[in-house]
Every structure is written in structure tokens, then in C-alpha cells.
């Protein structure tokens, strides 16, 4: 017998781990990895609320699918930006990319 609390606590812990990764890392790609963990935590939340609520209302799963699409587009554009920055500045250390014009 698994209560809803189990899934919600799991997603809360996953979200805070992702938040730590996004705030505490130097490499721009590592920050994006943290953001991915946060998006996955949100998705777990959405799907558990769908399952433990009224399963005839599909809004939970549809929202999760839209989050998949948004996460994929965000990662694509974010990584393209990171590669572009690396080509110009030879570094993707977030501490060093702090001037708008070199």
C-alpha cells in the first residue's frame, strides 16, 4: 500500500538535488543537468497526482507530455548556445562568462 506521500517526497528530494546542481556548479552543461533533474521531479509530481486523483481526467499526463516537449527544446537550444560560447570564449565556466562584449 503506497501512499501519495511516497511519490511526493521522492520528487521533493529530486527537485532539491537538481536545485543544488543548478546553483552550485561551475560548468554550464552541469547547470543544465541540474535543470533536467528538476524537470523530471515536476513530471513525477504531475503523474502521481493524476494517478492518485481522478484517473479519467487526462490533464496530468498531457501536461507531463508537454513538459517532455519543452524540456527537449530547451536542452537543444541551451546546448547549441553553450557550444557557440565555447567556440568564441574557449571556456564554459560560468564564473568566467561575465562580460557581454569581450
Amino acid at each position: 500500500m503506497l501512499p501519495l506521500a511516497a511519490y511526493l517526497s521522492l520528487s521533493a528530494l529530486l527537485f532539491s538535488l537538481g536545485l543544488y546542481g543548478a546553483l552550485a556548479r561551475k560548468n554550464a552543461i552541469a547547470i543544465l543537468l541540474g535543470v533536467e533533474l528538476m524537470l523530471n521531479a515536476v513530471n513525477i509530481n504531475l503523474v502521481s497526482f493524476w494517478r492518485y486523483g481522478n484517473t479519467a481526467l487526462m490533464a496530468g499526463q498531457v501536461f507531463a507530455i508537454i513538459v517532455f516537449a519543452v524540456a527537449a527544446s530547451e536542452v537543444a537550444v541551451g546546448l547549441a548556445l553553450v557550444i557557440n560560447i565555447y567556440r568564441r570564449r574557449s571556456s564554459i565556466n560560468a564564473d568566467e562568462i561575465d562580460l557581454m562584449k569581450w
Partner: protein
Amino acid sequence: MTAEQIIFYLTAALILVSALMVVTTRNLIHAALWLVSTLFGVAVLYATLDASFLAVVQVVVYIGAIAIMFIFAVMLTRRDLLDKVPQTNTSWPWAAAASALMAGGLLFAGSQLNAFGAARPALSGDALQGLSLALVSADGFVLPFEVASILLLAAMVGAVYLAYKK
């Protein structure tokens, strides 16, 4: 301890340990591979929640596309010596405090829900059928679905333009 509980605890342990390794390991390729392990654990979790379509789409989209994009990006922006230095920036104690506060806050807010300890209701109808109908019916979610596909097209064009080498 039913089989359902055992599977949940094992999957939760896999997800949390892999996520911890993602945010603490120094080698970025290893971080991307630990992310793959986390995503796979989340897919198993969706399967236990009777969202079978989401579980398979998680593997196809996240592991088959996003994780591979991460690995490629790490390989293209790598400099060898940077794998051994610590990867945290100077304000990491504040980040740790903020994330601990966030975890506590979310758990407290969740416990205030009166559905927090609820048991699982029975599944009403065929979930896959219901999902497919919801995604294409006009009084369902067809508009967000179509807008999401336009978003993906815009992201694809943007990413190709940004990363294109003249």
C-alpha cells in the same frame, strides 16, 4: 512488504543515488551517464504508476535524445585537465542551504494536503485510450499538443542556426 513497495523503494534508491552522483561527480561524462541512470529510474516509476505510454516515451525522448545530446555537447566542449578540479563554484554552501530549505518546504507543503496519505484509487477505463483521445479531441488538449509541435520546430531551427559552423 508487498512487491509494489519493494519495487518502489529500490527505484527510489536508484533515482536518488544517481541524482546525487550527477550533481557531485567531477567528470562530466560520468555525470551524463548517471543522468541516464536517473532517467531510467524515473521511467520505471512511471510504469509503476500505470502510465505505460509515458514510461516508454521517457526512454525514447530523454535517454534516446536528450542524454545523447548532453554527451555530445560534453565531448565537444571538453578540455582534458578540467576533469580533476572541483566542480563547485564559490557559493556552494548557500546553494546547499537553499536546496535543503526547498526540500523541507516542499515536504511541509505536501504534508498539509489532505490527500497526502491517500491510498491509490482504481484505474477508471483504459489509460492509453483515454490519453490518445484527450490529445486529439477539440474539447481535450489538441491545441497545446499542436503548439508544442510548433515549439519543437522553432527549437530545431534555432539550434541548427546557432550551432552551424560557417
